[in-house]
């Protein structure tokens, strides 16, 4: 059974950190009081609709907006010609070999993916704006398109950008090629695999949206938008639309999910801001679901050849990986980091591998820009490693669980051959627990009996690792990041003793209001209900980096701890002064400062807060008031881990897969709110199972998106996601004050290979080594029937 939630009022203050209390966010979301971007109505507000390219690759011969302009109620129409701002989207992560191509917010000469923006209509009403877009005529000279990264890198491929020869965006490698080649030469066995990690469409339930309002007399521009990181959008947008950063406010109201797709800076939100300045009226743009399919940055998109070298005794000797990564038509905000530093550095998995080499070629193609999607690089890495170790175990005739155990890293910190240092871990514990939950030995007996009856059961393991809380900033900078990866917080006591905590992360469903209040209440020793948390508004919180990469608790939460510690230290000085003792003689416990050895002489921190504002009796020279700011820059990444296992039954006659069980044992370090942790695991697993079985962006050869609606792209339904049995182990991280590791992406990273490994295990009698995702019934049926023919003598 799952974690039971509790009412905050029933939790003792001393236990607030770590308690599964109900979320304070929920009442507004459950009653319709929440405020999503499209809920915002402003006086005189206009609506924006965007004319998009219908072709994936074409030269633009002309755009005729006259019919749209003539419509009653159309306030403004503009194209690239009308822009007097830089209008180019920057890339936020540079690599040595990166080709930085122009990424205009409105295309004028050429479109490079279906959905590329061409013109903007501003109209009095929502439907009218879309009508007017329909009247814009575009003259296209259609060009050949390419959507597959390997095809794009071939000699005869259509070229997308003049300054990126051969469609190569970058060539990147990590690890030691020579040492790896030598290890492969010496090894007893080499097991290889060609795999595709398919393109995925994020599908946050709330489509992207923006409302912009402009005050010309003050030159102030406010943009309310669906964002995971308002401050980064403020910075990037200020350059793109040439508006001073200090006169720009970006605010995230309630945000209906992101999964990475609301990190990146897109053309659309910049166009909405420009529209508001042009018409000097508030404007709203709400993407349709069709627009999100065409324009949201997609995820994954790898084609990989990978090999593992293993000795007869089951010791892994090396790993060699060659990947072609789809980057889409232009470089999205953090695109270059995803298939490189977020991918190559995780290829050691949970294993002690002496040497690794990974080469990645990034390709421009005629699909929307590809960037971070839940997990971002780490699912791709984990998929490669976990498929290979499964195949290696099979090659050696070893049990896949015990083969993993044999090769686990056992000492921490552990430096891998791919440039990262694992902080802490105890990899056998989740494996043992998962095997126990599965009743593994009994399962293998049942599997053997079933095979006798012509029924094919399989179990698949995923001993995954992920890297969260990317840091420190200096290291990120050396790797190419064009931003620091710290987090900022301000914790402010009010004179009456309640607290408002401001933090630069920006939750969009993760329950930060609840977990961050738990952290601050615990640090200050005050009631949970006395703490308010504010996020997601650049006017309230001066600086921040946002929520992505499972960084919020590890980095944002730690920033709140640091500010709280500063408050406690100032409070201690005030308390000592008023108690007339030296500050070293004052103890602090659960909000109370007391004199060592004389516990009845004490003052509560909330009374200290009052005194700090009264300022009648403060230590000499001390400033009044009680608030503290910190910029927390972590010393290292954190590395959550765990073991997921899927149990399936496959019908080789139809290719249908039935889930029997899904077991997840995760170690995400200390848990601030176990109910929220469990929920994050569930959601992540669902997206991972979605990738394994159902999801994938598919394109026609001319670059037309075939999966452009929820009819065609399977966002899994309740009946398609198995019940999950979850448990956890706790290995605190030593690199942050909370000992937390991060949980937002764990399930998505872990699940795909658990499912694929399970299906391949079930189909072992058919010699099925690998099937590319999604494992649709037809794909599975083909894999089994082809190998059946082959084992019958290879006749066709």
């Amino acid at each position, binding site marked *: 059974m799952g974690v039971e939630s509790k009412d905050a009022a029933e939790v003792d203050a001393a236990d607030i950190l770590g308690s599964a209390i109900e*979320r304070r966010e929920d009442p507004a979301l459950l009653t*319709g009081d929440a405020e999503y971007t499209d809920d915002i109505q402003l006086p005189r507000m206009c609506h924006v609709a965007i004319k998009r390219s219908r072709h994936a690759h074409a030269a633009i011969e002309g755009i005729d907006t006259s019919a749209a302009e003539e419509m009653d109620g159309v306030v403004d129409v503009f194209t690239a010609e009308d822009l007097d701002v830089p209008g180019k989207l920057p890339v936020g992560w540079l690599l040595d070999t990166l080709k930085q191509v122009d990424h205009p917010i409105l295309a004028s000469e050429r479109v490079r993916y279906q959905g590329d923006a061409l013109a903007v209509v501003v109209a009095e009403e929502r439907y009218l704006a879309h009508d007017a877009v329909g009247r814009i005529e575009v003259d296209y000279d259609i060009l050949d398109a390419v959507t597959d990264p390997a095809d794009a890198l071939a000699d005869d491929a259509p070229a997308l950008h003049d300054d990126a020869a051969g469609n190569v965006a970058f060539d990147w490698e990590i690890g030691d090629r020579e040492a790896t080649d030598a290890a492969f030469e010496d090894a007893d066995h080499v097991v290889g695999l060609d795999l595709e990690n398919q393109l995925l469409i994020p599908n946050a*339930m709330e489509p992207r949206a923006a409302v912009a309002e402009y005050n010309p007399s003050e030159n102030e521009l406010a943009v309310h938008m669906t964002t995971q990181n308002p401050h980064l959008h403020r910075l990037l947008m200020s350059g793109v639309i040439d508006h001073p950063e200090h006169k720009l406010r970006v605010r995230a109201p309630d945000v*209906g999910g992101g999964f990475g797709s609301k990190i990146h800076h897109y053309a659309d939100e910049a166009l909405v801001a420009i529209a508001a300045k042009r018409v000097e009226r508030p404007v709203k743009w709400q993407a349709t679901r069709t627009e999100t399919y065409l324009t949201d940055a997609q995820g994954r998109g790898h084609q990989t050849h990978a090999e593992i070298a293993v000795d007869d005794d089951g010791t892994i000797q090396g790993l060699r990986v060659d990947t072609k990564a789809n980057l889409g038509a232009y470089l999205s905000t953090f695109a270059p980091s995803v298939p490189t530093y977020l991918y190559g550095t995780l290829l050691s998995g949970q294993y002690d591998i002496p040497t690794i080499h990974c080469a990645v070629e990034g390709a421009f193609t005629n699909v929307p820009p590809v960037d971070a999607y839940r997990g971002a690089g780490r699912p791709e890495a984990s998929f490669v490693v976990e498929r290979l170790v499964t195949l290696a175990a099979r090659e050696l005739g070893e049990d896949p669980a015990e083969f993993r155990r044999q090769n686990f890293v056992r000492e921490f910190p552990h430096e891998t051959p791919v440039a990262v240092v694992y902080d802490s871990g105890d990899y056998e514990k989740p494996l043992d627990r998962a095997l126990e939950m599965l009743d593994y030995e009994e399962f293998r007996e049942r599997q053997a009996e079933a095979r006798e009856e012509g029924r094919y059961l399989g179990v698949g393991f995923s001993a995954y690792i992920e890297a969260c809380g990317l840091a420190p900033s200096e290291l990120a900078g050396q790797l190419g990041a064009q931003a620091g990866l710290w987090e900022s917080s301000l914790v402010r006591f009010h004179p009456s003793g309640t607290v408002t905590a401001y933090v630069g992360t920006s939750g969009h469903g993760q329950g930060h209001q609840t977990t961050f209040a738990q952290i601050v209440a615990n640090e200050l020793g005050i009631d949970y209900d006395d703490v308010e948390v504010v996020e997601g508004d650049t006017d309230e919180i001066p600086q921040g980096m946002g929520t992505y990469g499972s960084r919020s608790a590890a980095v944002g939460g730690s920033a709140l701890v640091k500010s709280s510690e500063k408050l406690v230290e100032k409070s201690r000085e005030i308390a000592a002064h008023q108690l007339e003792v030296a500050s070293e003689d004052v103890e602090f416990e659960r909000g109370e400062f007391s004199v060592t050895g004389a516990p009845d002489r004490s003052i509560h921190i909330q009374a200290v807060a009052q005194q700090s504002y009264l300022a009648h009796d403060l230590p000499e020279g001390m400033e009044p008031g009680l608030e503290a700011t910190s910029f927390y820059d972590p010393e290292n990444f954190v590395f959550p881990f765990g073991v997921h296992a899927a149990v399936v039954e496959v019908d080789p006659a139809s290719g249908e897969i039935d889930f029997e069980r899904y077991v997840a044992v995760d170690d995400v370090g200390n848990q601030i709110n176990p109910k929220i942790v469990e929920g994050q695991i*569930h*959601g992540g697993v*669902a997206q991972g199972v979605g990738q394994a079985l159902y999801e994938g962006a598919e394109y026609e050869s001319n670059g037309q998106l075939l999966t452009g609606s929820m009819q065609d792209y399977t966002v899994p*339904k*309740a009946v398609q996601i198995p019940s999950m049995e979850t448990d956890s182990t706790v290995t605190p991280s030593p690199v942050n004050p909370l000992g937390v590791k991060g949980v937002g992406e764990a399930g998505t990273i872990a699940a795909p290979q658990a499912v694929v490994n399970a299906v391949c295990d079930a189909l072992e009698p058919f010699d099925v080594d690998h099937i590319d995702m999604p494992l649709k019934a037809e794909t599975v049926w083909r894999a089994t029937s082809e190998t059946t023919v082959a084992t019958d003598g290879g006749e066709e």
Partner: protein
Amino acid sequence: MTHDITLTVNGTEHELSVEPRTLLIHALRDEMGYTGPNVGCESSMCGACTVHLDGDAVKSCTLLAVQVDGAEVTTVEGLADDGEFHPIQQGFQEEHGLQCGYCTPGMMMTSLQLLEENPDPSEAEIREALEGNLCRCTGYQNIVRAVENAAETMRSQKQELAADGGGD
């Protein structure tokens, strides 16, 4: 050209003028300010816009407002009674049946209809009933628990009513 129609939403009667093509969801959200139901797909696939129309759960993104002239509509705003959560809201809160909350109003409206027709559904029946409502956050597990939780509350409330002699 517009049409004058009347809609009773959560017990309040509204008279409004709408274009023939105005969708019910836009009439509710943009014309009358009921922003609880959300637009997720404009194609009846995701269910974020689900409301009750004369007692039946419907997708308001693919109904025209003029089609439902004279109807009674219940949105998520009509669930709580004088600030007291409806058992379905309580169930979603207690079981962490939501994360970003965007699909939640529709999830609850669909679940309520299920519980009105089947007060004690099995897990499989709940999952089946929710096939027209997509969630990208929760993996559905806690939504299923939320519906089970609400079912239990509603059954015991009904029993209490019956014991008080007020049941039917």
